[in-house]
C-alpha cells in the first residue's frame, strides 16, 4: 500500500508538471511572487529544489529499505515547507531539529559552500560509518558546521535544552564566556503538533515564558510543524492554535497558505524574535504523506478518501502550482528539477549503500564515554591564585578553619565550589533554592554573593528545565553545575540525562559535548526529616544510563576532591558527571560516639597536583592492615560500616578493612581485587534499595565470575519505599544488620 501511495503522489506532481501551461509572463529572478512578498522567484525555485531533494530522499529511504540496505523510513514528506525556515534561520542560529527536517536541512546546508546534504542524508539512512555526524550510530539530522546538534527527538526531549541554549546566549555576555555565536543569534527548535503534548515540550514552553517574565531575553523559535496527526491519532482541529496563540510572553505566528505566504509569516516571526528576544511560537501548517514511517499501514486508521485528501495537499504539488501560476517558474523548469533531483538522489543512494558500516563493538562505543585520565589530572593542575582565594574566603582559608561548622561535609563542598568557581570562570551553578537561600541544606551559601547572579541563580521548580539549562549552556562553552534538590526529583527529569545529555557525544561522534556536573542531594538516613521523597535510596536509574559517571562521597574531604575530579572530567572529556551527596552526612560530626567529632575533617586545599582530584578507581581505604574481612561500600554505608567494624573488633577481635568505592559509575571492581585477595572474605554494604542500586549486584557478580575463593555476600536496604518517622529503621540497612552480616561471614 505504502509504495503505491508513493507512486500516486509522485504521479500527481508529474502529471501536473506535464500538463500545466506556463504563465503568460515570467517573473524576473528578483521579482517577488506577489506584490509585497519577500520571496523572489529565484529564491522560490531554490526552495523548490530543496523540497524536491528532501522528497527524493524519502523515496530513496523506502527503496533502500525495500532492498535491505537502509534502516530508517520516518520521512519528511509533507513537511517540506520547513525548507523556508531552513533558508531564513542562519547557520549560526543553533538548531535542534525533529525527524521530519529533511527539507529544512537541505535549505540550511545551502548557506555553507561545500556542504553535501543529499549524500550525508543517504549515508545516515544506510547507517554508514562514513555518515559525518553519527558515524552510523543513528539516523539523525545533525551537523557540526551547520550548528545542528543531533537529536533523536521522538518525545520532544530536545526542547528543554534548546531553551537552555537560548537562555545561555545572554548569560554568555554577562559572564564574558565566549559562546562562539553572534549577539543576535537565536535558537531554532522544531517538533510536531502531537509532540507538543509531551511534558518535556510543556516544560520548555513554560520555562521560556517564565524566563521572559523574569525579564531575561529568551531568543528561541519553537517551530511547531503541525501535520494534524501523531502516528494514528488526529490532533483535535485547532488545538495548537488554541493552546499557544494567546499565551503571554510567547509570540505566536501562524504560517500557512502558499509558499510565499508561509515565507512571509516565517520571516516576520524570525525577525521579531531576533530583534525582541521574546520566545516565538511559529505554527507551520504541514501535512503528513505516506504514514508515520515506511512500516506504518495508514489504511488501518485512515480511509482512502482521507488519505487522498491529505495527498491533494502535497506541499510540492501546491508549490509547483503556485510557482507556475505566478510565473516564478515554468512547468518545464520544475519538471527538470524533479527529474534531475530524483536521478542524482537515487544514483547517490547506490553509492551510499556500498559505504562501510560500524562493524565492531569498539567502534560503536568509541564516542560514548571518552575518558583520558592523564588529561583530567592535568586539567586539575590549572593554577589557582592564592590572592584570589584569600580575597574570596575573606582571609580565612577553609583549610585553616577549625570550627565544627566549617569542617562538615556541607562546609567542605561549599568551600570546594568556591575554589572551583575561581578555577573555572565558565562554571554556572543553579537549581531550586540554590542561590539566594544557598540551598535547602545551606551547601551553596555565599556563592551567589561572591560570584554574582549571572553565575549563581535560582531556577523555577522544574528539574527538566534545570537539566535543559545545563545542557544548553554546556553546548556553548559553559561548565554548568546544576543542583537537583532531592534524588527522588531526578526521576521527574531523568530522560534529560538518559535520552539527551549522555547520548550527545555518542550520536555526534564526539563533535558536540555537554559537559556538566550534576549535584544531587539524596540518599536516606536523615534525622528528623523522613519520608520517601526526601530519603530516596534508589540510584539504579542513574547507574543504568550509558556513559553517565556517578560519584557518592562519604566524607567532607573526599567530597571536595571528588568534585574537583568531576569538574576536571567534565571539562577535559566533555562528560556528564553526577555527584550524589548524602544529605544525612552533610552536617554529621561524629563517627562512633556523640561529640567525638570523628566525621569532621580538615578541608583539603587544592594542591594543583595531579593526584588531588579523586577519580574512578581512587578508593578510600580504612584500616588497610585489616585482613579478616573486606567491606566494600559507599556513602552512608562507609560510616555505618566503620561503626560496625569497631564493634566487631571490640566483640570478636577481628578486623574489617572498609573500602569506600567513592565512584559508582564507572564501578572499578578491578581496583578491589588486591584487597579481596588479601582479605578473602568480602561483604558488600549497599545502602540502596535492594534491587535498585546495582552496586552490590555488580561487585558480587564481579568476584563470583572471577572465581573468588572466599565467602562473598551483601547487606542491603529493604526493597521498598522509605517510610516516615521511626519506621525508616525497619527498612534501611543499619549498623546492627551490618555487624550481623560481618559475623556471619566470619563464622
Amino acid at each position, binding site marked *: 500500500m505504502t509504495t503505491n501511495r508513493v507512486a500516486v503522489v509522485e504521479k500527481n506532481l508529474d502529471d501536473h508538471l506535464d500538463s500545466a501551461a506556463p504563465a503568460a509572463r515570467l517573473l524576473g*529572478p528578483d521579482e517577488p511572487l506577489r506584490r509585497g512578498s519577500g520571496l523572489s522567484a*529565484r*529564491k522560490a*525555485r*531554490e526552495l*523548490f*529544489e530543496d523540497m524536491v531533494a528532501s522528497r527524493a530522499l524519502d523515496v530513496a529511504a523506502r527503496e533502500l529499505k525495500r532492498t535491505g540496505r537502509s534502516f530508517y523510513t520516518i520521512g519528511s514528506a509533507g513537511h517540506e515547507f520547513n525548507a523556508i525556515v531552513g533558508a531564513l534561520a542562519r547557520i549560526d542560529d543553533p538548531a535542534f531539529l525533529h525527524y521530519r527536517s529533511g527539507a529544512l536541512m537541505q535549505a540550511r546546508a545551502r548557506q555553507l*559552500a*561545500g*556542504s*553535501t*546534504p*543529499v*549524500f*550525508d542524508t543517504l549515508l545516515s539512512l544506510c547507517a554508514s560509518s*562514513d555518515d559525518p555526524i553519527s558515524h552510523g550510530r543513528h539516523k539523525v539530522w545533525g551537523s557540526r558546521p551547520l550548528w545542528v546538534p543531533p537529536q533523536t527527538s521522538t518525545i520532544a526531549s530536545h526542547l528543554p535544552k534548546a531553551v537552555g541554549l537560548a537562555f545561555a546566549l545572554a548569560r554568555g555576555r554577562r559572564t564574558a564566556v565566549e559562546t562562539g555565536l553572534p549577539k543576535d543569534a537565536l535558537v531554532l527548535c522544531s517538533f510536531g503538533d502531537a509532540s507538543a503534548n509531551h511534558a518535556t515540550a510543556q516544560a520548555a514552553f513554560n520555562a521560556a515564558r517564565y524566563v521572559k517574565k523574569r525579564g531575561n531575553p529568551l531568543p528561541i523559535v519553537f517551530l511547531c510543524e503541525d501535520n494534524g496527526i501523531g502516528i494514528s491519532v488526529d490532533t483535535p482541529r485547532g488545538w495548537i492554535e488554541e493552546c499557544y496563540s494567546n499565551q503571554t510572553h510567547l509570540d505566536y505566528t501562524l504560517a500557512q497558505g502558499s509558499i510565499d505566504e508561509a515565507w512571509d509569516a516565517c520571516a516576520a516571526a524570525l525577525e521579531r524574535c531576533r530583534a525582541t528576544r521574546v520566545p516565538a511560537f511559529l505554527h507551520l501548517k504541514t501535512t503528513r504523506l505516506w504514514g508515520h514511517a515506511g512500516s506504518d499501514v495508514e489504511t488501518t486508521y485512515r480511509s482512502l478518501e482521507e488519505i487522498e485528501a491529505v495527498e491533494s495537499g502535497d506541499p510540492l504539488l501546491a508549490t509547483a502550482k503556485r510557482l507556475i501560476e505566478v510565473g516564478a*517558474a515554468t512547468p518545464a*523548469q520544475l519538471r*527538470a*528539477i524533479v527529474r*534531475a533531483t530524483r*536521478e*542524482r*538522489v537515487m*544514483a*547517490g543512494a*547506490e*553509492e551510499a549503500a*556500498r*559505504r*562501510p558500516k560500524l562493524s565492531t563493538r569498539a567502534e560503536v562505543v568509541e564516542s560514548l564515554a571518552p575518558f583520558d585520565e592523564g588529561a583530567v589530572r592535568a586539567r586539575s593542575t590549572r593554577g589557582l591564585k592564592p590572592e584570589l582565594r584569600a580575597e574570596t574566603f575573606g582571609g580565612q582559608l577553609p583549610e585553616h578553619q577549625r570550627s565544627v561548622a566549617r569542617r562538615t561535609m556541607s562546609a567542605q563542598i561549599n568551600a570546594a565550589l568556591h575554589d572551583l568557581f575561581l578555577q573555572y570562570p565558565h562554571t554556572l551553578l543553579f537549581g531550586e533554592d540554590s542561590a539566594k537561600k544557598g540551598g535547602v541544606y545551606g551547601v551553596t551559601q555565599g556563592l551567589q554573593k561572591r560570584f554574582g547572579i549571572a553565575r549563581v541563580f535560582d531556577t523555577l521548580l522544574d528539574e527538566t528545565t534545570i537539566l535543559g539549562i545545563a545542557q544548553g549552556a554546556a553546548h556553548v562553552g559553559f561548565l554548568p553545575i546544576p543542583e537537583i534538590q532531592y534524588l527522588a526529583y531526578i526521576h521527574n527529569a531523568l530522560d534529560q540525562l538518559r535520552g539527551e545529555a549522555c547520548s550527545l557525544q555518542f550520536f555526534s561522534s564526539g563533535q558536540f559535548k555537554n559537559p556538566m556536573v550534576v549535584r544531587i542531594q539524596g540518599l536516606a538516613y536523615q534525622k528528623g526529616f523522613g519520608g520517601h521523597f526526601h530519603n530516596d535510596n534508589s540510584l539504579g536509574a542513574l547507574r543504568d544510563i550509558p556513559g553517565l559517571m556517578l560519584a557518592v562521597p562519604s566524607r567532607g574531604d573526599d567530597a571536595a576532591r571528588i568534585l574537583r575530579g568531576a569538574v576536571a572530567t567534565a571539562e577535559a572529556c566533555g562528560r556528564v558527571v553526577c555527584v550524589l551527596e548524602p544529605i544525612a552526612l552533610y552536617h554529621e560530626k561524629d563517627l562512633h560516639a556523640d561529640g567525638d567529632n570523628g566525621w569532621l575533617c580538615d578541608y583539603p586545599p587544592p594542591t594543583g597536583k595531579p593526584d588531588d582530584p579523586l577519580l574512578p578507581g581512587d578508593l578510600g581505604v580504612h584500616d588497610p592492615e585489616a585482613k579478616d574481612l573486606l567491606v566494600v561500600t559507599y556513602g552512608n554505608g562507609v560510616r555505618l560500616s566503620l561503626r560496625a567494624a569497631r564493634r566487631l573488633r571490640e566483640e570478636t577481635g577481628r578486623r574489617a578493612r572498609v573500602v569506600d568505592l567513592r565512584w559508582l559509575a564507572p564501578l572499578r571492581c578491578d581496583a578491589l581485587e588486591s584487597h579481596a585477595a588479601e582479605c578473602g572474605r568480602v561483604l558488600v554494604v549497599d545502602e540502596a534499595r535492594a534491587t535498585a542500586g546495582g552496586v552490590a549486584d555488580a561487585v558480587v557478580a564481579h568476584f563470583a565470575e572471577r572465581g573468588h575463593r572466599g565467602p562473598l555476600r551483601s547487606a542491603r536496604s529493604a526493597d521498598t519505599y522509605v517510610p516516615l518517622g521511626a519506621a525508616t529503621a525497619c527498612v534501611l540497612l543499619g549498623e546492627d544488620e551490618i555487624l550481623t552480616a560481618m559475623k556471619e561471614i566470619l563464622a
Partner: protein
Amino acid sequence: MSRIVILCPGRGSYAEKQLKSLDPADPRVQAAERLRSEFGLPPLLELDGAAKFDRALHLAPENVSPLIWLVSTIDAATALGDHECVGVAGNSLGWYTALAVAGALSFEDGFRVVQTMSLLQKEVCASTGGGQVLYPLVDDEWRRDPEREAAVRSALESSGGEALPSIHLGGLAVLAGSDAGVSHLKRVLPKAKLGSNQYPLQLEQHGPYHTRLVARVSELAFQRLAGVEFRTPDTTLVDGRGRMHSPWSCDLAELRHYTFGAQVFEPYDFGLSVKVALRELAPDQLWCPGPGNTLGGTVGQVVAQEGWRGVRCKADFAVVQEGPAPLLVSMRR
C-alpha cells in the same frame, strides 16, 4: 545516456606534447582567433602550430591560458554532445572554462574573461612577484601522508605570512607566496617524490594566484569585465568553494561576484568541488577535457580520499579504470 560531470583543467596542462592541439578549420578556433586579435596578441594557431615549444613564449599567462581554455572548451563540447552532463567544475583557470561549458558565459565572453584575467595576472604579478609551489600531501599509493601535511602546515606557519595556501588539488597542495615566500617554501619543505616528480616544485611563470597578494586582479577584473554577461547555466556548476549553482536557481550576481572576487584572491579548493560533484550529483563518469591529462591523477586522488566506488588508493583506482565501467575519462590521454 550516461550522466557525466566535466572537470576542466587549469594552468600547467599545456606543454610541448600539446602542440598542435587545435584544428585550424574548427569554427570555434577561428572565432577565438578573431577575439584574440582584438587584444593585439599573436594568433593562437601560430603558437599551437609552432615547430618548437618555447617555454618563455608558450607558458606566458596571456598565451597559455587561452590555449588551454580553447582546447578544453572544444573537447567539452564533444563530451556534452554524447552524454547527459549533470555538472561542470574546473580547476582555477578551469573555472572560466567551466563557466563557458555550462553556458553561464557565451563563447565570446568566456574568451574575453580568460584572456583578460591572464593579462591582469601578468600585469599585477609583475609588481607583486611571487609564484606557486607544488607539494604532495599523499604517498605514492595516494594515501594521506600526515608528515607531508604537517610539513606544509609548518612551512606556511613559519613563513611570516609570505606563503599561503593557493589551491587544494586532491593529493597535491599548491602553495603560493611572494618571492620571499616561495624561497622559504623551497627551502623548508623537505624533498619529496611522487611518481616521477620531485617536490617542492615551483610552477613556471605562475604568480601567487588565489591569494590576497593578487587582490588587485579582482579589483581590475570587476572594472574591465563589467560588460561580460553572466547567463543562467544549462547545467549545474560547482565552484572552487564547493558551492553548486543550478540552472534553475543560480544567482547570476553572486556568480559574477564570486568569479571576479573570492575566486581570484581566496584559496581554490578543486578537491572539494570534485567531492561535492561526486556526492551531490553522483555521476556515472567524470570527464576531463584536454589539453593533456594533468587532472587524471588529481581526480583519482580525490576519488580515493572520498572512497567513491570503494576506491581507497591508487591501485583500487587502477582496477576501476581498467574495469568495464571506468569512472574517469581523460579525453586527451
